[in-house]
């Protein structure tokens, strides 16, 4: 059966500790995602057996900084480099750092401007 979507709201200071706990229990890192609203909303997804859980944290739009989890899950370097190039989020302690050359785009940080252009109530409902 399709597992329940469980989303835990956490703070960016708890991120490393909770990721360590997930690694010790044997969870697999599935993806890291960012949404541009009034702040960057990050989602870290993990899975084991038939469970699928997510961490949700918010970081400010100006100077977004997060600790990197590549020490714990090395496979996260691909997601973190992509987020750095498209959103401008900097990760401290990134093990395999492309310094902005992962995706070469003509406009820097193309997704950092708001993704929802049409505000609620103004659309032709």
């Amino acid at each position, binding site marked *: 059966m399709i597992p329940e979507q469980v989303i835990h709201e956490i703070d960016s200071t708890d991120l490393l500790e909770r990721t360590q706990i997930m690694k010790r229990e044997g969870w697999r890192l599935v993806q890291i995602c960012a949404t541009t609203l009034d702040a960057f909303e990050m989602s870290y997804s993990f899975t084991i057996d038939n469970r699928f859980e997510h961490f949700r944290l918010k970081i400010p739009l100006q100077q977004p900084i997060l600790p990197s989890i590549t020490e714990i899950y*090395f496979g996260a370097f691909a997601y973190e480099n992509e987020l750095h190039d498209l959103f401008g989020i900097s990760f401290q302690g990134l093990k395999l750092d492309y310094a902005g050359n992962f995706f070469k*785009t003509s406009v820097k940080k193309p997704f950092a401007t708001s993704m*929802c252009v049409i505000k609620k109530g103004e659309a032709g409902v």
Partner: protein
Amino acid sequence: MSERTVIPFGPQHPVLPEPIHIDLVVEDEHVKEAIPSFGFIHRGLEKLVEKKDFNEFTYVAERVCGICSYIHGMGYCQAVEKVMNVEIPPRANYLRVFWAELSRAHSHLMWAGLLADAFGFENLFMQCWRIRETLLDVIEETTGGRVIFGSAKIGGVRRDVDNETLKRCAAKVASAAVEFEEIKKVFRDDYSVKSRLCGIGMLSRDNAWELGAVGPTLRGSGISTDTRLEGYAAYRDLSITPIVETACDSYARCMVRLHEISQSLDLIQEVAARTPEGPVFEKPKGYPNGEYFARLEQPRGEVIYYVKGNGTKNLSRFRVRTPTFANIPALLHMLQGCELADVGLIVLTIDPCISCAER
């Protein structure tokens, strides 16, 4: 101390279906490090949600990739339907599974042909693609297009297929399955295939899980996991066993995919016989408001669709995490210590679909 040279692999290479660039640091024909470089097919499709409304975006979602295009459309529709709380009719579910398994079979057959071409066995490459043509004819007859199916729609499917056509297509698929068994024997027994694939590209069981590998890359290392067991669409009525091999090398991954082709061809015949009657479309009401993570099984592994709606006709976020993107760290691990002549083969064993990985 021998000298190290850096050899660029790609973006144009006869082995690769899509461009990827890897810098190989080589010492005397052994690869010491591999540094990938992306961005050749980055089209920024995720940003198009701002301009296209959520119904039109189905066309964009289908065209993320050419090989695995139907399951992208199906996954997008499933995620939006869950957000909007639409129950789609059972006949639509069965038709979706019919096309999804056809998509899986044709993708794996194409991969098998490319693998045979990569180690020079062109005769086998042509035979695999000859069987694939039968499947593409079935797809064209039922949906209208060979590569881009165009039948994904929020609320069901766009076209109905009548039962007679389903029976005829099931017969064509059955004859293709019989021909495929002979080709599987060549892959399994032939001396030249085994000497190129056995023992190459080792990925141990613990490394595969920690680096986040998915799909046949994970199943070839002994871990039994398949997202179809969750039971989305009509899979809850079908019994599927994940195909697992324990040898952890390229030969194991190749055999996992070949067994999956036989499994898909059997599933297609089963679904064609069991499709219930009824409507194929249920009109959804209103606009999507909420978020959802949908998980599906593509030919290359587990794919995640994240959809977030805010009550207007444009979604606020659409994110695809494709299986090739998750297999890249495993690829870098496998390339360390291999010989230069095997690099092309190892890149092919993760089934690189770079246009999916970069959107």
